């Protein structure tokens, strides 16, 4: 009995060692790539340009040097362009950084269903990997308010943002394109609705709440514009991306964030349908998810890394806007992705009517 047990244990250890050995060969490790494995190959990374894409390129520098791949940068990401490439069967974008929802909306159509045996997603924060995407980075949409205007009675959450009686002043919202699901959910909540049981009719209710903010409301078109609105003090309360909020504060804007229910947002990394060398694209993604790559990305861009072990060295002003601390994680509000994926066209239509002054 004892003998057999010992034998069994020994066998298990041997088997286990064998299995680990086999795994070590097969299973990818985030951030690692075989020396010279992509020599002579070319990959095109598509993203949103600016310091963000520069940061991504810096994060991938090690991957490029080790694998021998030639990395080209293109952008900005436009789903319509990608669609044209996929339809014409001539896909030149190998890895595409997209906004939150498109990988869910066009999963399997424009974006490949990912084979997770080729990626190490063990360090990616929970709930962020989709069928067709891994996160590119995290950031937040945060309520920033003018400290000089509101002094001792500052707004605390989005309900206050939508309450123009208690908190008079000019509001600035993201009008750069697509609706922000989380914001509409917060607007619905402010009008007494329940975002968890959201229906299509509720989209109208939520948009009405925003419309009632009045004709003075500013819909900024670019992140830079939102930053400029804070620095010039033109808006009293602003819905802002954390990266821009940080820069505005660094530049002396007298604004401070109200973190309650900040909206969790991420960019996604995807591989389009029909890319010429899928394995090379996987290799890039896998390298991108690595600890060191994510640290470099965070240091260069101030966006929150998506590797749980990443510990970027950032100064206090950047650290104040990183969204992966336990406190921030508790305060964050996650949108109802399923609802917005199902109702994306309807929401977009209603939102663009609001944006067109109706």
């Amino acid at each position, binding site marked *: 009995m004892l003998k057999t047990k010992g034998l069994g244990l020994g066998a298990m250890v041997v088997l286990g060692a064998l299995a680990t050995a086999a795994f070590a060969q097969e299973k990818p490790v985030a951030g690692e790539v075989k020396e010279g494995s992509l020599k002579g190959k070319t990959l095109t990374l598509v993203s949103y340009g600016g310091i963000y894409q520069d940061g991504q390129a810096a994060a991938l520098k090690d991957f490029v040097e080790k694998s021998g791949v030639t990395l080209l940068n293109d952008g900005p990401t436009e*789903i319509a362009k990608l669609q044209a490439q996929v339809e014409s069967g001539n896909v030149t974008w190998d890895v595409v950084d997209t906004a939150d929802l498109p990988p869910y909306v066009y999963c399997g159509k424009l974006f490949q269903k990912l084979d997770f045996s080729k990626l190490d997603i063990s360090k990616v924060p929970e709930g962020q990997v989709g069928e067709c995407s891994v996160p590119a980075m995290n950031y937040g949409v945060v309520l920033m308010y003018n400290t000089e205007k509101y002094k001792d009675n500052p707004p605390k959450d989005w309900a206050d943002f939508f309450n123009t009686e208690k908190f008079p002043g000019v509001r600035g919202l993201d009008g750069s394109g697509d609706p922000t699901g989380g914001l509409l959910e917060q607007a619905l909540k402010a009008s007494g609705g329940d975002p968890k049981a959201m229906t299509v009719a509720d989209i109208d209710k939520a948009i009405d709440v925003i419309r009632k903010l009045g004709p003075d409301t500013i819909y900024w078109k670019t992140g830079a514009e939102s930053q400029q609105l804070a620095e010039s003090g033109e808006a009293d309360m602003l819905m802002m991306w954390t990266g821009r909020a940080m820069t505005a504060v660094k530049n002396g804007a007298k604004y401070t964030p109200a973190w309650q229910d900040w909206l969790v947002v991420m960019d996604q990394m995807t591989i389009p349908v029909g890319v010429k060398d899928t394995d090379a694209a996987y290799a890039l993604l896998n390298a991108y998810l690595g600890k060191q790559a994510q640290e470099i990305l965070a240091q260069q861009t101030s966006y929150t890394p998506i590797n749980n072990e990443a510990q970027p060295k950032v100064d206090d002003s950047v650290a104040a806007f990183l969204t992966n601390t336990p406190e921030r994680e508790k305060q964050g509000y996650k949108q109802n992705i399923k609802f917005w994926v199902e109702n994306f066209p309807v929401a977009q239509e209603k939102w*663009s009517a609001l944006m067109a*002054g*109706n």
Partner: protein
Amino acid sequence: MSASEPTSQPAGGRPAGAWKPFALTLPALVLLAAVIGYPLLTIVLRSLSEPEWGVQNYAWFFGAPVNLTVLQRTFTISAWVTLVCIVSAYPYAYLMTAVGPRVRLVLVLCVLIPFWVSGVVRTLSWVILLQDSGVINSLLRSVGFSGVRLIRTQTGVVIGMAQVLLPFMILPLYSVMKGIDLRLMRAAESLGARPSRAFFTVYLPLSLPGVYAGAIIVFILALGFYITPALLGGPRSTMLSTLVQSQVLSLLQWGRGGAMGVVLLAATFLLLALAAPVMRSRHREAGRR
């Protein structure tokens, strides 16, 4: 070559080499067919065939009030821009014909240098000028006026667009005006016309072809403006191109985007067709006088 040699044109017939000038336009025609004709055709076809064959995209366009509001607004804003351009370009172009060559060069450069600067840069400078804490408002406040809201209003959009489009008005105006014989004005005055009378009955009618040419170019360019209204305007000054953009780029509704483009094109043609007889008769009238 002697004078007695018969000309290549037999009396009453077509000149033998008449096709030659047309042949010379062939490269241009091929280019136009490739870069305008083909894409236009594709747009029309897609507007009728996506997601399925039929007029659903047009039905959608005319069924949604927001589209009609924005279409009307697009024409209103373009008309205002054209008007502002005419009023500000006319004296400028006149001055260009009246001054010496050196000053004219300076005036031409003043028109062309902004023309060479990217539209985005110019529009962003307008943001700096027009915003609530911007140059214009600070100036107004420093002399005791209360500030006016310019940015994110229709006024702001019209100002910005008019500045971008001004060269397209000045240049055709100038090219017509420099052909007007200024002695005609003196002749009119010597016949007893006051300067204003001489201007309105002689000079203005002769310069109208330039006004029409400039107005048409400015108006049509204004209809398709995208960057300026997007950056200087707010929801109440959204133009059709922005809606097209959101249909095509965010919703991938190429059919709807195509239908919007076709409607805009058709509306433009309709307007030009209506305006053409007016312009032609005025032109003839001017010729008669």
